[in-house]
């Protein structure tokens, strides 16, 4: 076994993902098969091979930086328009601080 149900529950908690008992079972089975396949990479000796952190970057080092000039931002109402709950110009969420 590459992964246990207990580990699946731990990873789900890290990812803020609620999974039903049935989903945990199925997920454990699926991840186990996929992780076993991923072990194939161990066949390769990669010592001294640099990780590919950058795909392609033909520009000069700082060329993506622009002048720091203020511009018109997205209007407040537009930025809030898709919120599931909002009020007084703020996003509303369940209470996080007890009085």
């Amino acid at each position, binding site marked *: 076994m590459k992964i246990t149900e207990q580990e699946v529950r731990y*990873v789900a908690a890290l990812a803020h993902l609620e999974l039903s008992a049935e989903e945990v079972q199925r997920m454990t089975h*699926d991840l186990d*098969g*996929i992780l076993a396949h*991923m072990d194939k990479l161990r066949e390769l000796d990669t010592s001294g091979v640099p990780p590919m952190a950058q*795909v392609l970057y033909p520009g000069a080092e700082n060329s993506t930086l622009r002048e720091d000039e203020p511009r018109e931002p997205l209007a407040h109402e537009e930025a809030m328009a898709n919120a599931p709950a909002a009020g007084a110009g703020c996003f509303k969420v*369940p209470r996080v601080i007890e009085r």
Partner: protein
Amino acid sequence: METGKLSIGGIQEALRARRVSARELAREAMRAAREQNAASNAWLLVAEERAMRAAEAVDAALERGEEPGPLAGVPLAVKDNIATRGVRTTCGSRLLEHFVPPYDATAVARLAQAGAVVIGKTNCDEFAMGSSNENSAFGPVRNPAAPERVPGGSSGGSAAAVAQGAVVAALGSDTGGSIRQPASFCGVVGLSPTYGRVSRYGLVAFASSLDRIGPLARNVRDAARILQAMAGRDERDSTSAFAPVPDYEAVMTGEARGLRVGVPREYFEGLAGGTAEQMEKAKTLLASLGCDLREISLPHTPYAIPCYYIVCTAEASSNLARYDGVRYTWRATQAETLKEMYERTRGQGFGAECKRRIMLGTYVLSAGYYDAYYLKAQQVRTLITRDFLAAFEQVDVIAAPVSPFPAFRLGEKLDDPLQMYLSDIFTITASLAGLPAMSVPCGQTGEGLPVGLQLIGPHFGEPVLFRLAEAFERAGGAEL
């Protein structure tokens, strides 16, 4: 006049000769989209108001004697993970069922600026995660060539919409093959440009070191014209390339003599369902065009699947963290605490495949596993890229199948995620290396299923892809 099968060039001529108006083209495209959707489920939305407004602007420009742009009046579909101002953009997810972007993606804005008319949004796998379009929260898409089969994914709706003919072209996104594989399954042209060639501003992020926007079209020239209008540096995407955009049409002479075409032996193993036969015909046609076919080897190909699914899930788990029910998604009700609200929203909002990838990505990045999975995969990615760079010292372009098999049946691979992942073997390699790659129609199998020939070029090698693809098309590649 019959507008259904017009090319971009044909539309420009007809508009300027006043044989048709942009409004007529838009109305006909919307009518066809609605009608064809009944068979395919390729469309998630027809953008009536936006389309008519854009078409009216083109007609008004023509009335005034102004130049309306190189894509004037061209009916275009946009994959539903690409932002369209004022037009709902769901990413095929319940979480974004009611999300209306306040801005256009740069690619969309540039095409609109060139006169293209956005007709509507196309179905896709949820957050572009899938190879069959079966992971959409709004139902699967059916392949126009065979309704009991998948159109491929994740840009399945875009490929099906172009194949059915309501639109001249569509935008898709390609992370591991999501433009090329549906293009091949549906028998249309699909291009994943060089990483950074087209701005991703407004493309909903899946795996940022892999994601690209590209065109799907009925022919190579139309695909080139779409790319021409949207390629180039965008200061809103720091990964967009500074490299100048060449004139793609200038290279399409129908002439491919002397091009050195690499045939990677690892890509011709395990082909099924008539794909091998179509590839043999393709090689014969390429040889008859005067191409110099050379067998090459890309030895790290067998490691591409694990490498890709580590990198893409790691990035996805991070990118999808933003869907927390606070700013712009659907929110689960009856949560007492903030944490419960996050967990329920995500647990109920994401479909099975997204959850699987979030879990995998979170796992491979978690403490104690980072070196064994993510770092290792990034090193293997370097090796895969080096394979290609070495090959391009000997050849100008690489030719291979897009997929090991033609379109499979709906449901056939749905219960076995690993089998689904393995079907991406021939497209993810160019994705990992950041190379431009294209699917060009390469006839049909005995069962009548389309097959695509994949052409892979060096970085920023779109011109050589267009040159060879157009010559292949002109020589009858689609009728093989």
